[in-house]
């Protein structure tokens, strides 16, 4: 992952973060809200190699940690997404690349979004945070999974396009 692409990817993630915090958070969807940012980040992580996925996870997590509405300690999302990045990249190497299959990829992103929220909840519990009842938390995780599943096909081609634009000629090969 070249430093230029790292910078461009970070700027893109921050742009998505601003959209998430300013626009999407205002829309009251049934069950719970939708996190565009989580879906985009998981998508970008899945398209990277092992080193790129870990770095992208860390930076993406740091941007998410900047959320002013977050009550969790700064660095919690960075920790979670560094691990998620490593796990995704390691498993992609063993199970094969399915990112070119749209349905599998959308399902993967939706599941990843839900699982990352569940891990966030688990880490929060270990750090002594109160996230409400387990039932409510499960509803939030499930709702996020559902909305990600529905909305990801709409923006997935855009994410792919943006990522391709950031690739260097060497990385394209």
């Amino acid at each position, binding site marked *: 992952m070249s430093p230029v692409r790292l910078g461009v990817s970070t700027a893109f993630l921050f742009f998505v973060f601003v959209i998430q915090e300013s626009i999407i958070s*205002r829309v009251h969807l049934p069950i719970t809200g939708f996190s565009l940012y*989580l879906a985009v980040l998981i998508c970008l992580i899945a398209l990277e190699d092992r080193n790129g996925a870990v770095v992208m996870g860390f930076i993406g997590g740091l941007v*998410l940690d900047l959320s002013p509405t977050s009550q969790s300690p*700064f660095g919690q999302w960075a920790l979670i997404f*560094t691990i998620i990045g490593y796990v995704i990249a390691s498993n992609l190497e063993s199970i094969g690349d399915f990112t070119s299959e749209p349905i599998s990829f959308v399902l993967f992103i939706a599941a990843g979004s839900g699982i990352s929220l569940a891990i966030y909840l688990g880490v929060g519990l270990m750090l002594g945070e109160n*996230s409400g*009842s387990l039932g*409510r938390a499960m509803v939030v995780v499930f709702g996020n999974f559902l909305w990600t599943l529905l909305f990801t096909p709409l923006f997935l081609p855009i994410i792919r396009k943006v990522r391709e634009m950031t690739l260097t000629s060497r990385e394209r090969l």
Partner: protein
Amino acid sequence: MARGGSNRSRLLLVTLLVSSLLLITLDLRGVSLISGSRSVTQTVLSPIQKATSDIFGPVGRFMSDVKNFGKTKAEITDLRAANAKLKNQAILNSDIKGQLAQLKKVLDLAGRGSFKVASARVIGRGSASTFSQTITLDAGSSSGIRKNMTVISENGLVGVVKVVTTNSSIVLLMSDPTFRIGVRVARSQSIGILKGEGANSYTVELLDPAGSLKVGDSLISIGSDNNRPYIPGLPVGVVTKVDHTTTLLTQSATVKAYSNLNELGIVSVVVQAPTTAPKKPINPTPNPTVTVLVTPAPLPTISGTPVSTPSPSTTKAKK
């Protein structure tokens, strides 16, 4: 070669994990640079949020209306019935109102409704990627808003200010799981603690085992020291279901908040609580006593000059 790459990956992973843990530790220890980064983000985001609030506000409200369509229709029917009932009650209440006004004077419980507030527009809601329930307001420290101030809507309590920047502030809603407030049951005067549960329902647990709760009981905020974070006398919610579980030492109940947190457009931050509302039981204090010492003077032998006498309103101590 592959092994070397794998080792590099692991080294990178460990480095980033350690960095994350370091950041968490620094934040938990209260290093200002780390904790201040969110305030900086909020400062950057608030103008964008304000602009998008104007543009996308109608979209958000439309989604909310679609979501609550059936509920709103049923609510209108209920409200019409309640309105007719209240009209009849209002006639009967006029006598009680007079008595209440007198009672208020006697008990010196004035002050309710005389809060000094700063009104603000809701320009953002808590991110879906966290479990916290928050809203963002378009007013901050420049409007006199400070951390730990009470936020109210036209119906009652909304939450408490948690983060303040120059032109925006973040409010922790009463529905947040970490939210706790001391409440008083208006009917029985029992005291309890109301907790947010992450959704539209709340639970209240009485502190006194002998206290009682009934469906329809109104809950009023007790207030905090120096009125921060909570001012006293605010309508909080109404009891909708009483839990009769015998295993609990004290009674608990499900509560519906007076404020509809899903439809907040304009809210007010109480920047100055009423100064006249009694925070502690008022002890009757005696009126100041004026002691007049009168020295008996010899009667004037020459008549014509009137002799001054002490006023009857003063207490006399004669020697």
